[in-house]
Every structure is written in structure tokens, then in C-alpha cells.
């Protein structure tokens, strides 16, 4: 029996150093993983391998950079329903937000909204790619700023200025068919967006009053059919993608109770990203208002 | 006056042959007892006569083949008092007895005056009139047995098959039920009762069918059928039978 006791004691003595080492090793590994190799590098003046990791950043890069500069866009860049520059994106490489793909390309500029803190890049802490964080733009002044910022980063500042100038001219030439009438941007499941959003800025530019502002609603709220009927806006702005009923969210937008309110269609491509397509979207809405007014006369 | 005839009836359940070569004819106006050891096939025979089991051979009632009859038609000719006292819902006795009129009700009609009279008669005969508003599931064993019997009587069918109507009844109530069955037979019905108790069977039945291992071992008046030799062969017991009194008295002496 004494022999048994002594054997077990011996084993535990031998194990102890290993047990102590384990947490130390884990800690060291974590520390190594967390620190990475330092902050992002500075971008070259004329990057040749630009990767965009955000759909809205795609729009800017496609409008301002040369095709041979673009090494990767997001998977939705070529979908016309979601990307205004879809035509230009055809033929360019589309990435699936995978760290592996980014690693393989070895970009010299990563553009995102923002790029810092993206999940794919967080998986590659030892690579320091030059990053460009583009701010979210919800109204023309902000859009011009992001255009200039991106144009400078991709090495074509003149293009940026030209685009901004064009947009300013086009926007100034836009009519104001709204004449103070009320419009509601009504989405799936009854969501409605209010002040401070892209569509809201467009409405104001065209002379429309946002129903959300009129009712004092927050930037995002849910409005029941009854409330919408009671509010009787002059126009209902709906996404074209909901024209086909394929779930209860879009079915709601086709309820007979809303049949009396004239509709204006917009695509997700024009409402999600504040970018060069802003003008086109505003023009489209203006044209639809004009058509509705013409039909009613 | 109704006649029930079985010709070479055979019942197989699963792979087991439960009844073989059953030949019998029953005429109205008699109380016929079916007795036999456990598992002999007594209940199976009763259920076969009601077309509740698939059976080969021929079963005819008044010359009409059971197999070609609709359930409703058969229900109007033979009333059934099942084994056990299953009652799934807490109906009043009156409502329970009323169920006996179902075979006579037209598809979407309610209970009529004639049906109510039949219900009254049945309750009177079974002596449950004073229980009519009681919850049938809360009655004592004897009271419930009478209530269920009243339900069977309410059908007013020319034939009645009762499967072990004396189960869980005390001797007094057992006599009540047997008296009732005999009175029905005397009034012109064909009454068949599956019984466990040989004494009761011997006392009240005009005719006994002894079923043993799926066959009819004996068929005739109790005095002729209940012999020590037969009891030994069928039940495996030593018994003495006294035929002196109004009915044969069976005394079981021991295992044979």
C-alpha cells in the first residue's frame, strides 16, 4: 500500500511543471495573435490592386478607378437590383468576403465602409494592407466628400472633381415636382424611414414632405396599414423588388387598402448607397411624379 | 320470431385459429348461455355473431347473410352489451340509454316521441328510472351494469347478445340481471349470454353451449350438458352435479 501511495505522488510531481506551462503558452499565443504586426501601411499613390469589401464602396471604386486597378469587388456588385454600377462590374473579380481570397490578391488598397474592423481583415492580423474608410453618405454634401476622398485614394483626383461638378449641375437642374406633397417610403413589413436618410434627402430635394417627419416618427419605424390609410399620403415610394409577392412582408404592400395611393418605384440600388447614382434616382422619382400628375390631369 | 344460424364458422386472429367448425342454430324465445374455460373463444364467438370480427363460413339472421347486411340493419336486429363497463363520457343515465336508439334514428334527425317511449320502457325494465339524472360514471358497479343493460334494451331488437353481463356484480344483482334476461327471452327475444358462472348458467339458461379450444364441446339443456365427465374434459376439474332440484347444481371439488 505504501508503494501505491508513493507511485501516485511521483506522477503528480512530474506533471506539475507541464500544467503550469499550459496557461503561460496560451497567454503568449493570445498576445501574439492580438497584437499583429502594427497599424496599416500607407497606400501607394496609384494603387494597382484595389479591393472593395462593401457594396457602397464598390460604387465609388467602379466610378472612379480604372478597370485594371480593380482586383476585387463584393459579390453583389454585378447584381443590377442592388448595384447601380452593375454594368461596369461585369467581368471584374467578385469576392465573397473571405480572408483567403483577400490574402491571395495581396491588395495595395482596401476600401470599405469602414475597412478598419472588418471581419475578414480581422482574421489576417499580420497583414497590414493600406485601408480607406469611407463614411456613410446620406445627402449630397456627404456624397461629394466621399467621392473626392475615394478619387484621391485611387489616384484620379481630377475624375472626382469632374464627377462632383456634374452631379452639382444635374441636381441644380432637377425640377421640384413635389410641391409640398406628402410621400412615404414604405418597405417590407410596414417599415418606414424618416429624417436623416438618403431617401429623405431625395424627397426634400424634390419638394416632397416625408410622412415620417410629418408624423414625428423616428428614422426607422413600423407603420400599420390602418395608420398608412389614415395618413393618406399623396405618394407611396416602394422598392421595385417588392412588386413580386414572395413573402408576407411584400404581400402587405399589395393590400387592397393601399390601392388608392399612387406609387413611385425605386430600386434598392438607388436607395441603399449614397453615391454617383443619387442623381439618377432623384431624376427617376421626379419623372414618375410628373407622369402621375400628367395622367391625373 | 328471429332465427340466428351459424354454419361452419371459422375465426382466425393473426395466425391463431380461435374458432373452428362452429355449427349452431338459435331460435327466439330462449335464453342461451355460452360457457367455457378462459381463452376458449366465447367472446370471439359473440363478436363474430355481431360481425365485429372477420369470419369464414356463414352466419345468417332470418335467412339473411350477415356479410351482406349494412351495419345499421344489423344493429336494429341484434343489440349488443359489450364486456367490461366502458363508458368514456360522463353522460346521465337517461342520455346513455338514449344511445340505444341510434340504429333507429334517421341520419340528421333528433330523438322522437317513439324513441323516448322506448327509452322509458327500457329504463323501467332495468329498474334505473330513479337513476335517470345521475352521472353514469359515478354509479356503483351494479347500478352501472343495469344502466348499460337498459341501453341495450332500448334498441328493442329481436335479439340481444350480452358478453359477461354479471362481471363485478354481487350475487343479488347477478340474480337481477339474469331474471331480466330470462324475462326478455320469455317475451319473445333471442337472448345469448356469455357467462363465466356455471351455477348461474345452469339456473337460468334454457340451453347451454360449451365452447372449448375453439370448438363446441356440447350443446343442449343444462341438465344434459353439465356432467362430471364433460366438466373434467373441458375445465380439468373434478365436480359433482346434482340434478334433483329445479336446476342442476354444480359443485367444484378440486383439480382433476
Amino acid at each position: 500500500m505504501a508503494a501505491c501511495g508513493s507511485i501516485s505522488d511521483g506522477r503528480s510531481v512530474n506533471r506539475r511543471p507541464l500544467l503550469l506551462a499550459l496557461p503561460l503558452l496560451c497567454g503568449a499565443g493570445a498576445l501574439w495573435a492580438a497584437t499583429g504586426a502594427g497599424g496599416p501601411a500607407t497606400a501607394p499613390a496609384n494603387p494597382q490592386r484595389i479591393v472593395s469589401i462593401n457594396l457602397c464602396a464598390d460604387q465609388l471604386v467602379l466610378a472612379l478607378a480604372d478597370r485594371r486597378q480593380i482586383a476585387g469587388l463584393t459579390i453583389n456588385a454585378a447584381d443590377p437590383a442592388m448595384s447601380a454600377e452593375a454594368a461596369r462590374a461585369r467581368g471584374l473579380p467578385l469576392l465573397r468576403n473571405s480572408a483567403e481570397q483577400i490574402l491571395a490578391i495581396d491588395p495595395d488598397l482596401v476600401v470599405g465602409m469602414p475597412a478598419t474592423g472588418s471581419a475578414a481583415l480581422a482574421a489576417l492580423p499580420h497583414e497590414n494592407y493600406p485601408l480607406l474608410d469611407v463614411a456613410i453618405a446620406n445627402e449630397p454634401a456627404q456624397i461629394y466628400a466621399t467621392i473626392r476622398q475615394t478619387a484621391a485614394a485611387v489616384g484620379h483626383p481630377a475624375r472626382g472633381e469632374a464627377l462632383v461638378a456634374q452631379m452639382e449641375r444635374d441636381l441644380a437642374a432637377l425640377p421640384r415636382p413635389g410641391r409640398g406633397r406628402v410621400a412615404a417610403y414604405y418597405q417590407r413589413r410596414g417599415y418606414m424611414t424618416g429624417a436623416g436618410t438618403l431617401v429623405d434627402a431625395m424627397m426634400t430635394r424634390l419638394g416632397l414632405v416625408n410622412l415620417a417627419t410629418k408624423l414625428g416618427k423616428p428614422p426607422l419605424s413600423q407603420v400599420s396599414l390602418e395608420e398608412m390609410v389614415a395618413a393618406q399620403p399623396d405618394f407611396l415610394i416602394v422598392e421595385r423588388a417588392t412588386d413580386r409577392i414572395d413573402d408576407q412582408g411584400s404581400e402587405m404592400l399589395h393590400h387592397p387598402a393601399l390601392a388608392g395611393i399612387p406609387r413611385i418605384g425605386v430600386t434598392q440600388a438607388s436607395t441603399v448607397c449614397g453615391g454617383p447614382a443619387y442623381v439618377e434616382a432623384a431624376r427617376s422619382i421626379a419623372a414618375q411624379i410628373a407622369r402621375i400628375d400628367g395622367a391625373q390631369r | 320470431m328471429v332465427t340466428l344460424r351459424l354454419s361452419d364458422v371459422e375465426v382466425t386472429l393473426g395466425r391463431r385459429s380461435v374458432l373452428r367448425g362452429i355449427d349452431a342454430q338459435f331460435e327466439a324465445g330462449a335464453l342461451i348461455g355460452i360457457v367455457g374455460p378462459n381463452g376458449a373463444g366465447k367472446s370471439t364467438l359473440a363478436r363474430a355473431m355481431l360481425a365485429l370480427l372477420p369470419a369464414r363460413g356463414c352466419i345468417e339472421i332470418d335467412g339473411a347473410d350477415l356479410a351482406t347486411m349494412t351495419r345499421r340493419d344489423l344493429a336494429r336486429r341484434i343489440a349488443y352489451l359489450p364486456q367490461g363497463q366502458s363508458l368514456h363520457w360522463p353522460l346521465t343515465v337517461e342520455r346513455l340509454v338514449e344511445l340505444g336508439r341510434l340504429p333507429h334514428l334517421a341520419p340528421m334527425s333528433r330523438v322522437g316521441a317513439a324513441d323516448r317511449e322506448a327509452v322509458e320502457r327500457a329504463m323501467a325494465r332495468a329498474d334505473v328510472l330513479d337513476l335517470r339524472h345521475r352521472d353514469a360514471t359515478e354509479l356503483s358497479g351494479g347500478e352501472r351494469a343495469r344502466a348499460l343493460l337498459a341501453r341495450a334494451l332500448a334498441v328493442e331488437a329481436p335479439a340481444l347478445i350480452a358478453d359477461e353481463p354479471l362481471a363485478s356484480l354481487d350475487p343479488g344483482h347477478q340474480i337481477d340481471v339474469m331474471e331480466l334476461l330470462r324475462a326478455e327471452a320469455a317475451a319473445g327475444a333471442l337472448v345469448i349470454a356469455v357467462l363465466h358462472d356455471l351455477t348461474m348458467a345452469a339456473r337460468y339458461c334454457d340451453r347451454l353451449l360449451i365452447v372449448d379450444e375453439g370448438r363446441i364441446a356440447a350443446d343442449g339443456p343444462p341438465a344434459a350438458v353439465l356432467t362430471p365427465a364433460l366438466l373434467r374434459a373441458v375445465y380439468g376439474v373434478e365436480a359433482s352435479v346434482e340434478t334433483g332440484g329445479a336446476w342442476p347444481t354444480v359443485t367444484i371439488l378440486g383439480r382433476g
Partner: protein
Amino acid sequence: MTRAAPRRWVLLAALGALMLAAAIASLRFGPVDLSAGRLFAAALGNGDHVAHVILFELRLPRTLLALAVGAMLGLAGAALQGYLRNPLAEPSVLGASNAAALGAVAALYFGLAALHPLMLPLLSIGSAIVALTLLFLLAGRSESPLTLILAGIAIATLAGAGISLALNLAPNPFAAMEIMTWLLGSLENRSFAHLWIALPCIAVGGGLLLSGGRDLDALTLGEDGAQALGVDLRRTRLRLLLGTAIGVGGAVAVSGAIGFVGLIVPHLVRPFTDRSPSAILLPSAIGGAALLTLADIGVRIIASTNELKLGVVTAFLGVPVFLIHLMRERRLW
């Protein structure tokens, strides 16, 4: 019988009045506060456009649907309890509701409903038939009520998982957000188009179940006793299967799977009847209509960012009442 007849009329009248009151309240209350005067004027035809649209296009179809779906669920619960002689039987417990919802989801989110408008109710009904057939196969012959309930829970869980899977696999990226609507039920934003889908199915299914009351009464004496009274058990089972599947299938295709209505209403109604299964059928239908309409009003009145799902309210409304009755009655029946 003579004593029960006037009691039955009193019960039906009381339930009918409750149903009517619930329906009127359902037309009166909603997210937008409209005065009774405005609504009345709109009902007569000389009201303003807004009140007219809200009353006739939004609240009226919703109320009618609540009545129809509630009636079907109450009736199906009463019929299933009667046939299976099980106090816990009802379409959602036995898995029929979830199965019907699975059929509806398959029709809507995989484009089948776009092929033909009848595809939705047909697939919903078909799934319910499959589930009930499976249920009867698994537990129909068993004497123990527990086996039946366990089989039902298994089927309901399987169907529920199927719904989640289907919605996640659906080509529509927003489909997965609608799982709760299908599993808990909702009558939000329904229109007359939905009513025309559900109503014929409910009418057919309800008619089948109501006509089978007598067979259920006969089953009081057990299967042998019932057969000996002239009941064709196969036909009874078929009638129950089809009646439940068609009625519940049509209802669920439009409202999603709503639970507890079929479980609770028969129990609430039973003490006021002679307790025979046939006597409970019609009162359960009317009571179910009233209960679901009241629950739907509750859903609209309880303030929340997302409209509460009906199944949540029916559970909160129904289960406490059920428990109180259970304790008072001292027995399950």
C-alpha cells in the same frame, strides 16, 4: 332530453351573443382610433374615404377571418377530443396545424403558389392529411391517451423544424424572418383574397365534422359498442380525417398555426352541455370564433413595436381559464 333542449338553446344564444360582441369590438378597435360615429357612418356608406377603407378593406376581412378560423379550430378540437376520447387532443397538439403550415410555406416560398392560386390551400390540406394519417397509424389503435399525444408532439416538432428549414433554404432572403408568423399565427394585414381561400375549406371541413356527431356519441361505449350500434368506424375515421385536414388546412394556409383554441374551448363549453360529444361540436365552433376574435383584438390593443402573434395571446388567455376549470371541476371531463 326535454330538460336539456332549452338549456342547449340558452347556451347557443349566449355564445352567439358573445361572438357577435367580439365581432363588433373587432370592427371598432384598431391601430387607428376611429370614433364609433365615424365607423357607423362609413358602414352606412356615407362616411369618409379613410374610415370606409379601414372598415371594409382592413377590419372587416380580418374579423371575418378570425371568426372563421376560430370556429374551425374550436370545432376540430371538439371533434378530435370526441373521436380519440382524449382530453388533450386538438389540431396543434396532434401536429396537424404545424404540418399544414409546412405545406403552406412550401407553396409560398418555393414559387408553387405562383403557379396557381389553388396550390396554397391544396398543399396545406395535403400536408395535414399526411400528418393525421401518420398520427392514426402511429397511435390510433393504442388504448393509452399518452401514446397519441406523444405521437402528435413528435409530428408537430418535426413539422416545425421542417418549416424552419424550408424558410432558411428558400430563395427569398427575407423568408426566414417569417418563421414566427407561421408557427404562432397571425391575422395581420389580411384581405378578402385570404378569406376566399380559407372560407370554402372551412365550410367543407366544418360540415364534415358537424355531421359526424352521432358517431362520436356512439363511441362512448367503445369501438365494439359503437359498431354494434350501426357505426361504420372506417367511415367515421375518414370523415374525421378529411374534415379536420381540409378545415384546418384551409385555415392555417391563411393564418399560420394557432394553438390552444381547439384545446380549451371544448373544455369551457362542456359543463354547460349534456357532456355528450355531439352536443359540444356546435358550441365549440361558436366559442372558438369568439375566443380567437377576442385574442385578435388583444393583439391589436397591446402596444408593442411588432404586433404580437396570435398564438401567444391565445395561450395567455386560454391556459389560465383551463387551469381554473380543471381545479373547479375536479376531473378532466
